[in-house]
């Protein structure tokens, strides 16, 4: 966790906003604050980089790369994970 000004985004907010940021739908002012946070917070900069890499990698996987059994296992894993959430 990095020391910050009250007007700056906290690391937890970076986690909440990352999807909107990567999809390019954050309002301008929010995006500027998001990117300024990445300049001084190495942890969040690494996190955003990893998410970008993940999206790039997953985006290269063709739809038919998984066997039906693997797809079924994944769906089940997500369903049971969702069911466990409070």
């Amino acid at each position, binding site marked *: 966790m990095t*020391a910050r*000004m*009250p*007007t700056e985004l906290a690391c937890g907010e970076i986690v909440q906003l990352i999807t909107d940021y990567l999809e390019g739908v954050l*309002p301008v002012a929010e995006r*500027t604050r998001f*990117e*300024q946070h*990445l300049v*001084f917070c190495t942890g969040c900069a690494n996190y955003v980089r990893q998410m970008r890499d993940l999206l790039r990698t997953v985006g290269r996987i063709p739809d038919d790369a998984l066997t039906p059994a693997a797809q079924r296992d994944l769906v089940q894993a997500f369903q049971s994970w969702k069911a466990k959430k409070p």
Partner: protein
Amino acid sequence: MIAYKFLAGGAIAPFTGFRWPTDGQWVRAIARQDGAGIHACRAADLPYWIGEELWRIELADPVTSNETQVEGQRGRLLGRIRAWDRLVRREFAAACAFRARDFAVEALGAERTPAQEMLAACDLGPLLAAARAASRLPPFDAEMVAYVVDASVRALEENAGSSSHTAAVAAVALRGRASAFAEERAWQARWLSERLALDA
């Protein structure tokens, strides 16, 4: 407008991953929506966007100004500012750690032992050791010394973006007003402009 732009190594935009052409070729922003243009810095904006490489950039009119950056729809790199190298980045990071030290000394009072020990440090290692050795301080003094530890650690990691930010936060803590943040950023911008012989 001639401005400045920080990029990652290899002239890569740090947030988009775009590799800038370094042969002077014009680049047009992909989207025309507000805020999606090509961003650059005035000299005063530099401390907010510290990066590995610093370039001079030309933005075609119209250029809009925001609080900490300028924006145009077309831009081209004019040349790299070679003076902003690893050595100067380290120097800047250290200067910011010592600014945090000065704020802590002001808070503690220069006559007290922890302040004396931090004042005696002439390099980052001894400064960090002196700050870490300070113990049993009242909460506010401990907070100010913690900024010295943080800024020194970041400077030793050669993370100038982080050490400069910590120094600005320390300034706010000491002065007790938010405007001290921009004042410290202004001090940092002056340091960079003078050290890199930039136009204001």
